[in-house]
């Protein structure tokens, strides 16, 4: 596997704990969320635009806290209400004790019975995909205080409104994730490469490159991944076909612009 192909794989967008980059802002959010989880809150709302790192953060929290606390993650929304209830039951009690026809009301009763005995935290990723009725039920479950929910939502005007309507009275903590600054972009690119021991490639990115990357991606981590993936795809092509074109110790802005053209950030 060529060097540039390997580099492409670093920037494939995937939600893995290993992909978590400890940027200044993300560390701040991480600590804030961890702190909130420790508090006796009913619900925590985590929202932000797609690609701002909500899923990675939730995964990181789940990875770090699952051993110490009763923290569980539902990364893919379960649309079926019964399935969802059953899943929650497994978080609270052993699966063997679960009644065969567990209804929502039964589950609420169980939660109320466990109120002072057990507390768990359930992380709900992509919560905007849950139906309104299910969200309403989640809200009522949180009232039992047996389960604390961390709801991760995409922030759109409509979804923001839904979030407010459903959780306004119950949400004690709101964390909004935003696109990174130019400094975050630089740190993100550098750290991603350094973690994979690509020090010489990390050094090839100069200030101008980062400015350009930030300009095209607006500091959105998913877009940064996409852009750098395409960039290294282009580098891979030149390495195979025209190696003289990529000689040098710096990343050429020309290839970043070509990547942006390919991804449609800019038009010719």
């Amino acid at each position, binding site marked *: 596997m060529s060097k540039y192909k390997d580099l492409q794989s670093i920037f494939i967008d995937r939600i893995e704990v290993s992909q978590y980059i400890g940027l200044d802002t993300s560390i701040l959010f991480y600590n804030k969320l961890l702190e909130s989880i420790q508090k006796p809150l009913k619900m925590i709302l985590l929202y932000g635009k797609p690609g701002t790192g909500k899923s990675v953060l939730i995964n990181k929290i789940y990875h770090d806290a699952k051993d110490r606390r009763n923290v569980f993650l539902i990364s893919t929304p379960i649309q079926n209400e019964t399935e969802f209830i059953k899943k929650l039951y497994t978080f609270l009690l052993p699966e063997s004790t679960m009644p065969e026809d567990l209804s929502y009301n039964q589950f609420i009763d169980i939660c109320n019975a466990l109120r002072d005995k057990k507390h768990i935290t359930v992380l709900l990723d992509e919560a905007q995909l849950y139906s309104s009725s299910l969200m309403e039920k989640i809200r009522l479950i949180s009232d039992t205080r047996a389960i604390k929910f961390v709801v991760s939502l995409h922030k759109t005007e409509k979804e923001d409104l839904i979030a407010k309507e459903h959780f306004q009275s119950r949400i004690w903590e709101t964390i909004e994730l935003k696109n990174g600054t130019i400094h975050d972009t630089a740190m993100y690119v550098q750290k991603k490469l350094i973690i994979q021991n690509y020090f010489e490639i990390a050094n090839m990115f100069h200030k101008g490159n980062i400015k350009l990357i930030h300009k095209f991606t607006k500091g959105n981590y998913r877009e940064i991944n996409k852009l750098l993936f395409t960039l290294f*795809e*282009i580098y891979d*092509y*030149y390495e195979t076909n025209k190696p003289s074109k990529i000689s040098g110790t710096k990343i050429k802005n020309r290839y970043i*612009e*070509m990547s942006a*053209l*390919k991804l449609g950030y800019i038009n*010719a």
Partner: protein
Amino acid sequence: MLEIEKLEKEWRKYKIKQLKPYVFISILLALSAIFLTLYSKDATKLVQQIAFNDEGAKKEVAVDEKEMSKESTEATESETKSYSSQTPSSNTSEEKTAKIAEDKTEIDLDSRDSKKEEKEVDSLALKADTGFLETFAPQSTPVSSKASNSPKKAIQPVQRPTTDTSNRFAQEMKDETKTENTVDSERAVKEHNSLVLTTTKTNNTLEYLIKRFNEKRDPKLASYISRSYYKKGKYKEALKWSIEANSLDPSNEESWILFAKANVKLGNREDAIQALKVYLNQYSSRNVKSLLNSLESK
């Protein structure tokens, strides 16, 4: 699979598009810079030309001064001779001085004509000339009195006729006969000196003004031409042009005054008085009244 060639083409297009505004701005800047440099060159050329004109004028003045100083000494000699002898020959000297006076009026008129022409042709050049003349103005009066005594200081009177033209014009307008008959001999000498300075531009001035009048049909220009002819003593022409001015603008008092004056000169005093009265019936004018009074009193 990447289509690198297509991407490269697109990138080139993108770069051109990106550079367009900068190229446009730089071209604009370059053009403005070129324009500014050219303009400033023109300006400097103009300034140089003006300076050159000034120098030329100064040289001319210097040459005139020499001639004038010679002439002034000659004139003073003849003057003293004529006064000291007081013989019948004094009549001839009087005739001479009268002639000189006539010359003077002509010179004044000419210098004024030339001024006007310059103003109309090129205002910048005119400004420079006037400036030059003004710088000499304050020195002219005290030195002119000593003109007959020392040839060196006699340089100054040359400028006086040109600077004093307007005043003298006004004087002459007020009292026409006086300026023609009673001429101070010393002053006549000075005016005679100014001849050298101004005669160069006089020939075509009236022709030019008439040409301009034919183009513009300006009543003020017509009365100016009339006045010029009047000053030259061409009263018939003056009468003709006063009528021309009057036909274009009957309310223009100067055309009436010139008509009257020219008629007086041509011996038609009654016509002049009649015209002034007609004018006063319709308009009120202090100048016309005073002229009418002076004509009626004689």
